[in-house]
């Protein structure tokens, strides 16, 4: 691939904030199609693939990872300035990721429990999605996002189509795959009715409950699902934890989790 100036090519940057690097693999795990992709777009910054030009101006910036340190925050602002379009990828970038579980706790106490010298480490009290700090033009949910999501998105842009978010419920994908409902047949506390599609309904295909790694769907009725979980015999603490997993800091899941946590506290008193 010739990366020299080609004015017609879409220029792309991939930035990493606080994350596991798993979403970047949606690019690096593409196999042969990665070579096709680099014919269509020109990567300017993508450290894991070997390109380190963080401050170059680009058409499209993908951001992986949550804002959890002062450095993350500064970078997010720079990315906004340098990019025409900003797209957050993955649970970390869209809702703070697993590390946002600290938002529900005393993050400082946690730091002190883990580090003998927490003062050596600069970190924010919370882990949050990128859109809480800068304007984000599009979000790809999923932990991790898939190759299909990335390529579909880029190709829509290249064809001049306005990308549309996929936000229907996982249950719909289950039905399309003709999977047996794990909630009906096994009383498994599946989040499918409030989680967005995109994974291909993987967990139900493995006979297990969805744990929500693609985040909340459109119009999620979390409360009624949570009541159903109570009907299945889950205690409030367990219900709270179902929603406090990969996307604990997304609004609907956070609210539901708080609600059941509060009930738990009352019971203990």
């Amino acid at each position, binding site marked *: 691939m010739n990366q020299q100036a080609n004015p017609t090519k879409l220029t792309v940057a991939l930035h990493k904030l*606080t994350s596991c*690097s*798993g979403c970047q*693999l949606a690019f690096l*795990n593409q196999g042969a199609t990665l*070579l096709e992709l680099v014919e269509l777009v020109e990567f300017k910054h993508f450290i894991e693939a070997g390109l380190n030009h963080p401050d170059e101006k680009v058409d499209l910036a993908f951001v992986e990872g949550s804002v959890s340190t002062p450095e993350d925050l500064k970078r997010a602002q720079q990315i906004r300035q340098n990019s025409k379009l900003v797209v957050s990828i993955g649970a970390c970038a869209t809702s703070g990721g697993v590390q946002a579980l600290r938002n529900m706790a005393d993050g400082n106490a946690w730091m002190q429990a883990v580090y003998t010298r927490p003062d050596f*480490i600069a970190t924010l009290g919370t882990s949050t999605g990128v859109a809480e700090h800068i304007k984000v033009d599009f979000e790809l949910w999923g932990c991790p996002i898939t190759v299909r999501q990335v390529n579909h998105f880029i190709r829509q842009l290249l064809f001049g189509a306005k990308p549309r978010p996929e936000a229907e419920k996982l249950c719909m994908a289950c039905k399309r795959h003709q999977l047996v409902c794990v909630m009906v047949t096994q009383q498994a506390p599946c989040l499918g009715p409030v989680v967005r599609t995109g994974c291909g309904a993987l967990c139900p*295909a*493995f*006979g297990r409950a969805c744990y929500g790694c693609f985040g909340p769907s459109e119009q999620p009725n979390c409360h009624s699902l949570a009541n159903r979980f109570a009907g299945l015999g889950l205690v409030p603490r367990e219900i709270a934890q179902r929603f406090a997993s990969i996307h604990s800091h997304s609004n609907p899941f956070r609210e539901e989790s708080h609600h059941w946590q509060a009930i738990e506290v009352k019971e203990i008193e």
Partner: protein
Amino acid sequence: MAKQRKIALKVPFVTRLEGEGALELSAKGDTIDKLHLKIFEPPRLFEKFLEGKSYQDVPDLNARICGICPMAYQLTSIQAIEDLFNIQLPDHLIQLRRLMNLGEWIQSHSLHIHFLAVPDFLGFESALSMAKQHPQVLQRGMQIQETGNALMTLLGGRSVHPVGLQVGGFGRLPEPANWDAARQQVDQALPAAVALLRWTASLPLLDYSHDFIWVSLKHSEIYPINGGDITTSNGLTLNYWQYPDHFKEHQVRHSTAFYSLLDGKDYLVGPLARLNNNVAILPGPIKKLVNDIGLVFPNQNMFTSIQARAVEILLALTEAQQLLAEPCPTGDAHLPVTPQAGECCYCTEAPRGMIYHHYQLDDEGRVINCTIIPPTSQNQARIEQDLKYSVKKFGLHNSDDALKFFCERVIRNYDPCISCSTHFLDFNIVRG
């Protein structure tokens, strides 16, 4: 330097992997007075947010420690917990886990070789920019990487944060049609792996061999992934419970990752450490090929790590081929699970080296506390020691650019899980 404090922790904690790094080197003439590999991975506090979570949720959360070796984190916790719950898996499930493990090694090593290491040898900035001139090298790498991913997907549903593993076995067994497809893919990738190994043997390597300790699991019959004793090159053989007696972590000001030391000394984990310890049990044909192409293990040249990875890729594909030659397994996908309170620990070999997990669970199987020690924190002290030795030997009179590139290459041998910094270090040199 004056302010650098080392504090020995009583209970070791590590909370993250991956991230970014920087190197700071200050020297006067021929004397280095500071050489710091700084890892500033933001803390993600896994060990705290796992507290209170059910044993069923632990593997899914643990996967998120690292996108490149998620299964290693899942499986280390699963095996520790299975030990505590007295679960002994039937043979076919053990084999399936092994197959999936092999897949993770294949994809992770291939990613490392082709995206991180090879551009050094061919003189490119990045793998992407090699595509035009060396399509065959990259395509071969991608074929191998895809095969590893396919094995993980066969058993886990996807290769990043797979969903198939659980305490007690798997969610379901593979479908025969997918089993056959995986076998074909492995058959096709094997010649590519042989070619890759030969190619790595033909590379001109730097040699900065020096004395150091290496540590890995070791097993008398099978190349170790899960199981085997912790074995050190200075003569220790330990079980997992003895880990905390000898391995201690401490924090330093310049890095967010902990430093782990073995009885006060730095040590190596990872492919070269594993191969050094286990070369004797490589299958005959692979051993012969390794000899024929002139590779010698054990050795203490960290630049042979790329070859060690290629050997392990070939080993993994060979074993995968044997496992897949059997009919697609039938029977139970998992065993019943009855939680029990207590403590448990386990070590496995992630692609990048040994991982240690320790859990205390209550009688419902909820985490009371835990400790997770990844390979990166184990290698960090070793990387710094290697740099101190190698940079001096390389010559501090070299230009900043030459020194920077040299240091990057040294660090890349270790593939520390700061995947970003492995290719690019903010390099800071102060010359006195």
